[in-house]
């Protein structure tokens, strides 16, 4: 993996209420996920990193700390894919891509070569002549991504959630030496190839975790909701090995378990031993707030460690 810095921030405060400045470096081949709901700083940070809005203070730099400041609207090699992308009524996908290619500075001949390739890569060939506004949400998002690709960006900033069919393309983009920043509202939208996940609250990035760290933390905090047929007495349910915080809910129980696969195995055994059927099983991911609380961040609000302790020698 190329270790060059494509985008960095210098003492960045996204909002007025941000207490700690954010010093971030985005490496080539890496994918950073900003995890936070619509009321958090994740969306604003996404737009600031794309050069589409101004931060409260600090700067976003192209390259490392010595790079050029990313001016508003001048992000030639940083492309932004908005969540609510729209086109003028009646514009087809092909027209949209042609206009994007013109904006990216490709000559007509070059655009004629690139557009079919991008359509194929994004699996959008069948929609080339469809009106963009009539495309289903996920396909429309792919169309916005395809248009962003025409600029051959080095950094792709996406305001998610992005459709699952986009995840392998993002992975491929990173393998090609690009870097991705994606803002998602929940754990279930995080691409598998994400390197670092930034947990965002209302005003700032509270913590950066590796994918594995987050996965193990989330697994510990997953809430399972199970329903049995016929109904199972609570005292029997409480005998489930490893189950904690058991709460009776309509038609069943909700509880926390240390490991998902062990929980399912134990549930099946419990049902079988008591001649019951599992009528429903739901796994609910923990909220971002719950993860932050679990990590005891309330006591330590220090500057986020964006390299997870690695010395990159920058």
């Amino acid at each position, binding site marked *: 993996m190329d270790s060059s810095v494509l985008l960095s921030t210098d003492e960045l405060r996204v909002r007025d209420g941000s207490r700690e400045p954010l010093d971030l470096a985005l490496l080539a081949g890496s994918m950073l996920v900003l995890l936070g709901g619509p009321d958090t700083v994740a969306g604003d940070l996404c737009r600031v990193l794309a050069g*589409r809005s101004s931060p409260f203070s600090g700067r976003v730099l192209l390259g490392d700390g010595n790079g050029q400041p990313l001016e508003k609207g001048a992000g030639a090699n940083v492309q932004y894919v908005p969540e609510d992308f729209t086109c003028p009524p009646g514009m087809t996908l092909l027209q949209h891509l042609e206009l994007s290619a013109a904006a990216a500075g490709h000559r007509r001949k070059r655009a004629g070569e690139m557009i079919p390739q991008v359509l194929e890569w994004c699996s959008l060939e069948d929609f080339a002549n469809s009106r963009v506004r009539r495309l289903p949400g996920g396909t429309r998002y792919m169309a916005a991504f395809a248009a962003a690709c025409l600029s051959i960006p080095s950094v792709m900033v996406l305001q998610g959630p992005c459709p699952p069919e986009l995840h392998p393309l993002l992975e491929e983009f990173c393998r090609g030496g690009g870097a991705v920043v994606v803002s998602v509202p929940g754990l279930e939208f995080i691409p598998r190839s994400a390197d670092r996940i930034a947990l965002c609250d209302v005003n700032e990035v509270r913590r950066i975790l590796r994918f594995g760290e987050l996965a193990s933390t989330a697994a510990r905090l997953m809430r399972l909701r199970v329903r049995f047929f016929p109904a199972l007495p609570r005292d029997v349910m409480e005998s489930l090995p490893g189950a904690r915080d058991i709460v009776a809910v309509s038609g069943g129980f909700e509880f926390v378990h240390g490991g998902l696969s062990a929980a399912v195995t134990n549930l099946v055994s419990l049902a079988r031993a008591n001649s019951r059927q599992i009528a429903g099983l739901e796994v609910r991911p923990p909220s971002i707030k719950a993860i932050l609380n679990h990590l005891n961040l309330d006591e330590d609000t220090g500057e986020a460690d964006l390299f997870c302790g690695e010395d990159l020698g920058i």
Partner: protein
Amino acid sequence: MRRRPGYLRITLSVFRWMFQRAVSREYFSWVVLGAPLAAWLLPGGGSLPLLPFSVSAVTWCLPAAFIAGWAGSEDRTSLSDILSGSMAGRSALVLAEMALPALAGALPAVILLLSGSSGGEGYPWQVWTVAVFSPLTALSSVVLLERYFGLSGYLAGLAGFLAQASTVSWAGTGVFRILVLQGYPLWTMEWAAGSGGPLHGDVYAFFAVLEGVGLSILAFRVLLGNGRVGSSSS
């Protein structure tokens, strides 16, 4: 090396979507036909010479009909999203969206003037200058009035257009004729026809160029800063 955007393709695309949006709105015909008719029906309007009044109407109403409401429209926001990846793309968008209304006003005016001057003496240069720069003033003032005054801005623009037909005594003063930008083509053509008036044609030409260029620069800056993703700030 940064690539230059395909200005011509962007311009043609913007023309297309802007034109489609404008002509599909009922508002368009109200501005293009209703405003001149209202001015014609006002006291003093019926006595206006047809050709000068027609030139005045096309140089003001056509640009206004194309640009009014465009800056905040969803179509414009969408195009801005597509083209806002670079400053050059956004500049190309703004140039195109100013060029269409300007051409829509200037070309018919020039055609009307050509038809009016065929077979006789041509119009002096002041008339041509005013006819070309008035659409720029028209579209820019609509953009600026809309930006800063909203609906009141539209009414102010319409009031100015209707005021050129006014017969009140102070409507003949030089100050009034300088302040009512909408009347420059009419009054310049009246001056060229020897109808008199308080001001020489040079004055109208001077102010038409000054206001056309000055207001266009301001409107360009307003439009450049206007866009969903570009203007959002935390």
